[in-house]
């Protein structure tokens, strides 16, 4: 069986959830082989094995880690050629998509981004993409070169499978160059899960009325173990940091549960959350477009509904 290369997303030895998703997906097409750029492969190995990775190609070269995008694309191109890989899977994060773009140029191969599913087809893998804010579902394929697909995080459920996860050291055949990383700064995130990886996202909109009202959104998120999101109205007004914006120009999320609190649901916002599995909305306006998307919607005052919900969640937890 052909090798399927999966570019690992990791922070040191800590394997990101999306990596398990990609290894699971790779099994549909061939033998999953993880590509690990930078340090931490020894620590991350067991986690990759749990999802069925047979090999882990490791380039623990400081030059790879210290340069932006280019060396990782070089590494992947080298492995695609040396191992005759038939597919490359990359996490569809902004940084991952850059690697995908460079690799596509190097191999003169087609690249598909933001796929929410990928299935074998008669003429190679067929990707499902959700475009125009989720209003249109597209099936696309690569017709030249080795397919490179950037998958939207959270789109595939990771499934356990046993893999040997044999560590295979790789040396870059070319000198890494380009822009250099001087320093890495980790933003304070507290205890909340990452917005794009979270199983539950609780988002607040204009209806929260300001930073004081937005505290309710944080409280609800914490009660549910969820990530906090915000509509553009909220981040534009400076009520909550911009990096939490969900929407067309912000983050795209696909959680199991999305709660839109005081968000009307303009196209700008829907574009970032429409593929969520279950949607709950609370809005005082019965005409709010978000209610059309909601599996469950409450027309009412969020300042009454959310505190009551918090009480109820606390009650049920203490049972």
């Amino acid at each position, binding site marked *: 069986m052909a090798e399927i290369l999966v570019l690992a997303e990791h922070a040191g030895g800590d394997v990101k959830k999306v990596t398990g998703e990609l290894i699971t997906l790779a099994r549909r097409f061939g033998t999953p082989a993880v590509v690990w750029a930078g340090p931490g492969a020894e620590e991350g190995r067991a986690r990759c094995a749990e999802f069925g990775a047979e090999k882990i190609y490791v380039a623990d070269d400081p030059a790879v880690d210290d340069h932006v995008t280019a060396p990782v694309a070089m590494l992947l191109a080298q492995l695609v050629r040396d191992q005759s890989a038939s597919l490359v899977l990359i996490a569809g994060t902004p940084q991952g998509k850059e690697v995908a773009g460079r690799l596509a140029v190097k191999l003169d191969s087609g690249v598909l981004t933001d796929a929410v599913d990928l299935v074998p087809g008669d003429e190679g893998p067929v990707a499902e993409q959700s475009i125009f*804010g989720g209003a*249109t579902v597209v099936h696309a394929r690569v*017709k030249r070169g080795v397919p490179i697909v950037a998958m939207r995080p959270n789109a595939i459920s990771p499934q356990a499978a046993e893999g040997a996860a044999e560590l295979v050291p790789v040396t870059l055949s070319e000198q890494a160059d380009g822009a250099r990383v001087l320093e890495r700064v980790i933003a304070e995130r507290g205890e909340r899960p990452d917005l794009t990886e979270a199983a539950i996202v609780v988002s607040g909109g204009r209806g929260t009325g300001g930073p004081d009202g937005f505290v309710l959104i944080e409280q609800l998120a914490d009660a549910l173990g969820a990530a906090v999101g915000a509509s553009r109205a909220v981040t534009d007004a400076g009520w909550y940091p911009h990096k939490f914006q969900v929407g067309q120009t912000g983050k795209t999320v696909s959680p199991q549960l999305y709660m839109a609190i005081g968000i009307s649901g303009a196209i700008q916002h829907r574009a970032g959350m429409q593929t969520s599995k279950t949607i709950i909305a609370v809005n005082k306006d019965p005409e709010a477009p978000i209610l059309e998307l*909601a599996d469950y919607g409450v027309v009412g005052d969020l300042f009454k509904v959310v505190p009551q919900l918090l009480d109820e969640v606390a009650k049920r*937890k203490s049972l």
Partner: protein
Amino acid sequence: MKIVVCVKQVPDTASDRKLKPAASSGGGGTLDRAAVDGEVNELDTYAIEEGLRIAESQGEGSTVTVLTMGPDKAAEVIRKALSMGADDGVHVQDDALTGSDALGTSLVLAEALRRYAEGFDLVILGSESTDARMGVMTAMVAERLGVPQVSLASKVDIDGGTIRIRRVSDDGYHEVESTLPAVISVVEKINEPRYPSFKGIMAAKKKPVQTVSLADLQIAPDQVGLAGAATEVTDFSVRPPRQSGTIVKDDGDGGVKVAEFLAARKFI
């Protein structure tokens, strides 16, 4: 300093965007650009503004060129950038470009930069377009030109021949440094794009815009457009509206009802 900003005309995000028939129906499944109003890709407006600010801070002799690829009507986005203060424009327009994928587009932009912006110090792009949302163009253009990619910048500082940016990462940011020339991309909110002034709009009408064909770039028509694309839309469907859920009015028990729904679905 010689700065080039790449801009894209996209359909108004609030309009009803549609695709043309896909491969299964004998078409290309490309965006129906004629059907909707075009606007400058919002994320590119931050790139234009950043280009203008850098040019202003670098002083006399600095220029900002706007580069776009697209049909006749895409000239509107060049005018918009010129009215904000850019100096001149390059518009790559050729019927054979219709249906180009990211590989084709990056080839065209890279060749246009080589031939019509020779000696550039800085190429600036928005982080993605609001229509295709691929977010690959900066990396592709940098790869083709063989110059450093300094992308996803939320802050840009230039000191002589060195550029230093704050690069957005998934858990914070990285301080990244490179020599010039470089290809950079900027993220939303790096700045507040200016509105064109009346004077700016009038002045834009006299600024030079070159229209360039594929032949001028020495690119064969079959390297781009649908013919040259390495990807294909096989089919598409307009998503049926989500099955309408249960909508209740809060009669004093809204919170309890949401909790019951969450419990029934095992979220709590």
